[in-house]
């Protein structure tokens, strides 16, 4: 999101899901969307099948979409900047750039154009492993198809240079004028049901709701007046910084709602240690998760089926969540619990009787949500920005101006991943997702049928690599990194390129994130979950309970 903020001035999907059907070309880079966003995957596949849309897939893994793709760029994990800059060099050299768009809507183009000389085709081929002819073909296809859309997810962001990756994508879209039109755009597909909403609401260390900076004195004053409290103008710490600070004893207490860092965060055993060192740890969840087990107090929360509220989806669409059943047992909606704690601490401004009242305050203080109310959401769903009660919402961003005015072209240098394979750890581990499970499996592992499809972690390893290690399909292996070791079953598959293995993190029995690298992007603070150096060895005996 930080990358898009630099290039465009706001970080969110520029277009809408329905738009994909209108694209003449889609570049899907670093996203396994048929697994992670199945309905978007269906849209994409059906657009390709109807013959209206040509698909370019860029992914080191042979994901499901590869069979639908016109061109598959199988670049090495972590070389996205080189691949993208290589594509752009071809586009500029062949005169395929949209000069009018660049002139009217872009800035800093000359410096950017000059930086492209560092990416000649032979270097691109050498670094990414993608044949030059394929890079040229992909560049031509993307640049000559109008409109063209880019989809990406964590395969782009979860790198120590994730922000660079995102800015490279923004460069590519601007270079070809693919911004602000139906079927075009830069579209980060958000993974969780309300990750967009959590960001929009200011569950981030540097902004209040609607991305209003905590450091801006005018914003601070506005919220101080509204909330009747003195506020701190210094941005706080991100999750990836909070855990190490807890480990050092600098952060002493954490109140955590509905997350499971024990499995989801990189270098997970270090994270668990950090949480154990806290003086006081409150966890609010619907299940006694691996994280909740470490808490001093566990507060039972109502599930989405038991409460009213709103979720904001990946295309900025705010939709109503409705209570279908009473909260189970003595559980309570999250907002109610949080308000109780605040009120009992003597705070004012938490006397909400319903989520509708909370939304009214959000709308009052958040320009992009200004026109959103439960009354309107009863009849429709609204895509922000929606500043007034009469505003119909916004399907496509940046149609005339970027949020920051002009679109900023960024000259980029290639930075390799923080950890590269070496003699001791010769393989690259990259993380992916299974269609049948969700994040740390807190919910999906409770569903018997889903476990029938996928009941355990599988280490996807190229048959060539496996043969060298004497590993057979289905055999238990131990994956070892500088941070930990995890045992799981090997699955021999050409979907993993030689030298790269892939694992999910859905299974508590094989906590993949004990292996991953917590090194993070300096701007976005996103950890490098997509590249860690590991080695794979035979496990003497099955140490993993399955089922």
């Amino acid at each position, binding site marked *: 999101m930080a990358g898009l903020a630099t290039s465009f001035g706001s970080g969110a999907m520029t277009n809408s899901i329905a738009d994909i059907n209108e694209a003449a070309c889609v570049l899907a880079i670093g996203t396994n969307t048929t697994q992670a966003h199945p309905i978007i995957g269906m849209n994409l596949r059906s657009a390709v099948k109807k013959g209206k849309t040509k698909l370019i897939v860029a992914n080191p893994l042979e994901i499901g979409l590869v069979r639908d793709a016109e061109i598959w760029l199988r670049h090495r994990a972590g070389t996205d900047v080189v691949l993208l800059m290589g594509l752009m060099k071809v586009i500029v050299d062949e005169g395929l750039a949209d000069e009018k768009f660049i002139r009217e809507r872009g800035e800093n183009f000359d410096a950017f154009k000059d930086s492209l000389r560092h990416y000649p085709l032979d270097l691109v081929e050498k670094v990414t492993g993608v044949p030059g002819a394929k890079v040229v073909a992909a560049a031509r296809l993307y640049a000559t198809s109008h409109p063209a859309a880019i989809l990406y997810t964590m395969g782009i962001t979860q790198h120590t240079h994730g922000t660079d990756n995102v800015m490279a994508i923004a460069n590519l879209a601007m270079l070809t004028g693919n911004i602000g039109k139906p079927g075009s755009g830069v579209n980060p597909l958000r993974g969780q049901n309300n990750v967009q909403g959590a960001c929009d609401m200011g569950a981030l260390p540097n902004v209040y709701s609607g991305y209003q900076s905590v450091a801006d004195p005018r914003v601070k004053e506005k919220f101080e007046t509204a909330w009747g409290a003195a506020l701190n103008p210094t941005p706080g710490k991100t999750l990836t910084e909070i855990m190490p600070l807890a480990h050092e004893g600098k952060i002493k207490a954490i109140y955590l709602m509905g997350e499971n860092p024990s499995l989801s965060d990189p270098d997970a055993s270090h994270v668990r240690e950090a949480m154990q060192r806290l*003086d006081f740890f409150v966890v609010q969840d619907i299940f006694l998760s691996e994280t909740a087990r470490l808490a001093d107090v566990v507060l039972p929360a109502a599930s989405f089926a038991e409460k009213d509220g709103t979720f904001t989806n990946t295309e900025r669409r705010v939709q109503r969540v409705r209570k279908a059943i009473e909260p189970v047992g003595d559980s309570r909606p999250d907002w109610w619990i949080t308000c109780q704690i605040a009120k009992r601490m003597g705070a004012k401004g938490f006397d909400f009787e319903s989520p509708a009242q909370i939304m009214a305050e959000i709308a009052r203080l958040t320009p992009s949500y200004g026109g959103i109310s439960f009354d309107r959401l009863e009849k429709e769903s609204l895509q922000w920005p929606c500043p007034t009660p009469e505003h119909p919402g916004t399907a496509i961003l940046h149609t005339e101006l970027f949020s920051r005015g002009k679109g900023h072209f960024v000259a980029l240098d290639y930075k390799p991943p923080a950890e590269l394979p070496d003699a001791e750890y010769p393989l690259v581990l990259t993380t992916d997702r299974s269609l049948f499970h969700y994040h740390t499996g807190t919910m999906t592992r409770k569903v018997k049928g889903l476990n029938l499809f996928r009941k355990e972690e599988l280490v996807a390893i190229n048959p060539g690599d496996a043969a060298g290690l004497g590993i057979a399909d289905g055999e238990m292996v131990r994956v070892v990194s500088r941070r930990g070791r995890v045992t799981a079953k090997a699955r021999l598959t050409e979907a993993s390129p030689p030298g790269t293995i892939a694992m999910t993190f859905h299974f508590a029995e094989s906590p993949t994130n004990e292996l991953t690298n917590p090194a993070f992007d300096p701007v976005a603070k996103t950890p490098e979950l997509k590249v860690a150096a590991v080695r794979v060895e035979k496990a003497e005996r099955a140490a993993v309970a399955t089922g």
Partner: protein
Amino acid sequence: MSDITLTINGREVKANRGMTVLEAAQAADIYIPTLCHYPDLEPYGGCRLCLVEIEKMRGLPTACTTPAADGMVVTTGSAAIDSVRHASLELILTTHPCDCLECHRRHRCGPYDVCLRHVAVTDRCVTCPANEDCELQQVVDYVGVHKLRIPRDTRPREIDASNPFFTIDRNRCILCARCVRACQEITCIGTIDMSYRGYAMKVSTFGDLPLIETDCGSCGECMVRCPVGAMFPKDIIRPEREVRTVCTYCGVGCSMYLGVKDGKITGVRGVREGPVNHGRLCVKGRFGIAEFVNHPDRLTTPLIRKNGRFEEASWEEALDLVVARLGKYRGDEVAVISSAKSTNEDNYVMQKLARAVLGTNNVDHCARL
């Protein structure tokens, strides 16, 4: 919007260019029987029930495959149509268990009545999962087939129960191919197809493997389009009411109805008007919700750690402890971790608590993970 006018059964009907005759009739609330047509699938013309007469056209064209045109004059029922339609329907019925269609008591039977008069208990109409919800029943009622003139083909056909969420019972299949087309046109995977010829024709997977052994993603889009009871969910509980909400899994934001009975979630149904999904759902959304919401491991009471073990506590006790202990920390010493799974309202009050009460901007969630 309406840009063409046609006459159906003597009535002037407005329609949009690009509509088929069937769609034009449906838009004007004129019923034409069909079993293979489905609104979001391409026209197929397989069941031969939507036959109509159109002036200046030869024969009996199928309404579902004929584009509506300005000035068209259409008749949906006549002796010629009825005769062919009746025969087509009889052919469909020869391979479908007909007990639920022929019995004159059917309309008076409740879903759990035991029928002892006409058919064996094991084969009674109420055993069909599509009973009272069956499009074939509707069509039979409209066309009025009471007896088959052709002997029934009663050879048993294979049942594929390998998928944990739904079953294919080919004994009830009428070969309308809606499931196959859904798999090819909606999900674009093409796990199932029509295979073999003539009487042996059936819906099957590549190599006739059980569904669980294929690339099927188990979204169930095939199942929801089945007009009869040939594809049906394994857990069928009729909800007493349905509540429209949004899925809790990924960021797509699919609209869904949660079925509710006795204070529990019975199942999930896609909302056709849903702005993002248009009725479609994936395996997690369709089949992965009721079980976790209703799961016995759900936390139902606050827990407080005492001497290394969790003990159940009242809300009063738990909240007082949180306030006493958490309230001691301010600013840099404390952090709040919010949730990408919770609602906007939950997240808003959480960051407000961090900033306005605990005096810290140390608030984040797993956006980066």
